[in-house]
């Protein structure tokens, strides 16, 4: 096929027409020469077939024109030679010319057909080549796309360690553009530059490497962990020309793995350092893990059957909760070992393994000592309960006794007082001054006795936590004013002035009656312990979320030691004072009880010989309802 056109190239194509023209010219010269010079009419016209056939082969049907030309020329020369007369020779020439024409036609036709088929084949071949080239280009584009769009880094490094190819993924991961690194050494990318040689050596020796982990440095100086797979690239002759490397950034994975490992190590440490026994058995009772406490006892039985290890049995233990745990339940139970005389608290939990199987995690704790202690505590509690019940009973009886006693004491006091008052008020006739004075003394002491009985009853209720308060909105200033009005005559009798400085106060929730009792007690004390013709200052004000009451006297004052026991029952500092000043010594203890029942505070500041100031404060907003009132601190 290759040689089907001897004049495939254009220079030779030009020679074709030259040769043909030369052949035609030669034939013309030969015709003229033979006919006119030699004067012969011989069969030389065979030479004419040369240009005719050549033209047929080279120019196909155009050969007909050559044949016509040569035939016509030959006929013309014989016609001229015969002196322009039509003879036999001329006729023969015409016949030959026709033969030329036929030959030219046949050769031209055959050659033309042949050339046509050749052209067709050529066309087909060219088409095939075009198609396969297109396919090749598509495949190459496809592969390029894959390489370029991969987030993994794909690089080609030649045998000298020079980067030859660098995909988009590599640009993203490493921060270098391809045009910056192609043609440069790959050493600078490794945290340890020797790593470049080691990888090259490995790949050359093994032909490929897989999942090789190393640290590379990005353009911004940050080190990242990668895993690399590489293979040798060879040329047609099988000579290595470089390596192709695919790497992936696994920094996050490495960090994650490290964290998981650290957590696992911690967990292990926890298990190992636990004083409780910890072990894990598989679905088929095989010991998978055992912590130190248990290993000390049982050696290292990993892989052995648990009932075999613990109890030397061939069958699972009768109490074992294995099957329940395998169903996904967490079981807590107590096991008492008669042989060891010990009690264990067991918590058994299912653990899901990665492969879908379930293992049983058991934590068991020796609670023998705790059990004993619990028992002891239980017994002690029982005793304590009984004691508390006794005490409660005693307190209740005390209160009951006191209330009964006070009733019994008051009963005879009632007619005594009534009769004396009748005497005093002149129901039984007019008395003289001495009689009247005597009755006044009796009545005064009767009053004191009554107060004492009331105070004792109050304090016993406070101590028993049974004081009853009826809370409602109230104004502290109103209570203060009422008390001052009541105490005014007593103060005047001693020549004492009560000065009140009452600030604007919000209403509070309190028991007005009880608070009057407290204020009355404090005012009464202040008057009692003031020097003659002194002043007592009563003040109220708001302090933050509290209302505060204060009362100052300029009397005898209280020493530090005395201040401490001031609010305790029967603590009137000097018993002789009771006689001098009257009072049961219970007033401040009762006051404290009442203030505390209102969620308030009561306290004193004093200097011996100069006077005292008593304070109490009560919160403005407090949520107290009638129901939770029977309380006292």
């Amino acid at each position, binding site marked *: 096929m290759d040689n089907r056109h001897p004049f495939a190239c254009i220079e030779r194509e030009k020679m074709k027409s030259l040769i043909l023209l030369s052949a035609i010219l030669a034939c013309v010269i030969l015709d003229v020469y033979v006919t006119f010079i030699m004067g012969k009419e011989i069969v030389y016209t065979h030479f004419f077939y040369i240009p005719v056939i050549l033209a047929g082969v080279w120019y196909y049907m155009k050969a007909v024109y050559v044949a016509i030309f040569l035939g016509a020329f030959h006929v013309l020369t014989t016609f001229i030679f015969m002196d322009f007369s039509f003879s036999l020779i001329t006729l023969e020439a015409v016949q030959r010319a026709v033969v030329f024409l036929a030959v030219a036609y046949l050769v031209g036709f055959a050659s033309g057909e042949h050339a046509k088929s050749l052209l067709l084949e050529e066309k087909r071949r060219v088409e095939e080549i075009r198609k396969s080239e297109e396919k090749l280009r598509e495949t190459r584009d496809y592969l390029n796309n894959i390489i370029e769009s991969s987030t993994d880094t794909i690089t080609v490094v030649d045998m000298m360690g020079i980067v030859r190819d660098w995909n988009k993924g590599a640009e993203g991961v490493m921060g270098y553009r391809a045009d910056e690194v192609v043609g440069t050494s790959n050493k600078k990318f490794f945290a340890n530059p020797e790593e470049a040689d080691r990888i090259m050596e490995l790949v050359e020796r093994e032909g490929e490497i897989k999942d090789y982990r190393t640290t590379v440095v990005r353009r911004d100086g940050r080190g990242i962990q990668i895993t690399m797979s590489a293979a040798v690239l060879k040329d047609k002759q099988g000579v290595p020309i470089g390596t192709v490397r695919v790497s992936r950034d696994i920094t996050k994975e490495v960090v994650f793995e490290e964290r998981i490992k650290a957590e696992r190590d911690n967990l292990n440490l926890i298990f190992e350092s636990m004083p409780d026994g910890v072990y894990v058995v598989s679905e088929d009772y095989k010991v998978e893990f055992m912590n130190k406490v248990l290993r000390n006892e049982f050696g290292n039985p990993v892989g052995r059957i648990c009932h075999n290890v613990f109890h030397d049995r061939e069958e699972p233990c009768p109490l074992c909760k294995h099957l329940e745990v395998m169903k996904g339940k967490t079981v807590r139970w107590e096991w008492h070992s008669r042989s060891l005389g010990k009690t264990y608290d067991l918590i058994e939990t299912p653990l899901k393994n990665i492969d879908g199987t379930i293992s049983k995690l058991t934590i068991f704790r020796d609670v023998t000592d705790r059990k004993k202690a619990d028992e002891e505590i239980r017994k002690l509690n029982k005793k304590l309960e009984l004691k508390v019940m006794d005490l409660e009973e005693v307190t209740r009886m005390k209160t009951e006794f006191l*209330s009964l006693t006070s009733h019994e004491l008051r009963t005879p006091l*009632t007619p005594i007082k009534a009769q004396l008052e009748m005497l005093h008020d002149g129901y039984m006739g007019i008395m003289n001054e001495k009689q009247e004075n005597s009755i006044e003394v009796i009545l005064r002491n009767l009053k004191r006795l009554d107060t004492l009985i009331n105070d004792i009853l109050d304090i016993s209720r406070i101590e028993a936590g049974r004081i009853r308060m009826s809370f409602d909105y109230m104004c502290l200033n109103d209570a203060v004013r009422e008390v001052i009005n009541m105490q005014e005559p007593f103060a005047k009798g001693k020549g004492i002035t009560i000065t009140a400085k009452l600030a604007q106060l919000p209403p509070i929730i309190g028991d007005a009656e009880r608070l009057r009792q407290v204020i009355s007690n404090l005012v009464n004390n202040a008057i009692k312990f003031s020097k003659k013709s002194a002043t007592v200052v009563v003040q109220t004000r708001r302090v933050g979320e509290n209302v505060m009451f204060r009362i100052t006297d300029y009397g005898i004052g209280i020493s530090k030691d005395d201040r401490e026991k001031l609010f305790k029952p029967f603590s009137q500092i000097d018993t002789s004072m009771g006689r001098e000043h009257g009072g049961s010594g219970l007033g401040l203890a009762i006051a404290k009880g009442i203030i505390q029942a209102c969620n308030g505070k009561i306290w004193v500041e004093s200097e011996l010989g100069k006077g005292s100031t008593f304070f109490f404060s009560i919160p403005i907003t407090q949520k107290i309802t009638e129901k939770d009132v029977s309380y006292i601190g």
Partner: protein
Amino acid sequence: MMFVTKTVMIVDDEPDVLLSVAQILEANHYKAIKAKDGNECLEKLQRQIPDVLLLDIMMPGLATKELVSRIEKDRRLAKIKIIFLTAIHLQEAEEAGLFASKQVVDFIEKPFSVRRMLDTIAKVIKENKL
């Protein structure tokens, strides 16, 4: 002053208290009826209906609470106002539920002062327009 004599019944198991209270009331122009316990009180109420009842708490025989509830149930006695006159602490009386009845209007603690007792009775009479 007063135009009609008011009647006060006094119930107390202590004869001396009974006597003293009656003396005070009579000296102040009240008509006093004495009863030494709950039963006697009920009995006397059959014959005479007082305006005010001075009632002790803690008496032998019929309990005070029971007595109050019987008076409350008797429509004839609906106008009587009851004042406790007792050595029991107010708080205990409240706890015992003695103030449940609407007829109970006041409380005088023993030992009472004559003035206070008279004032209370006068106040109750005035307030209830007896």
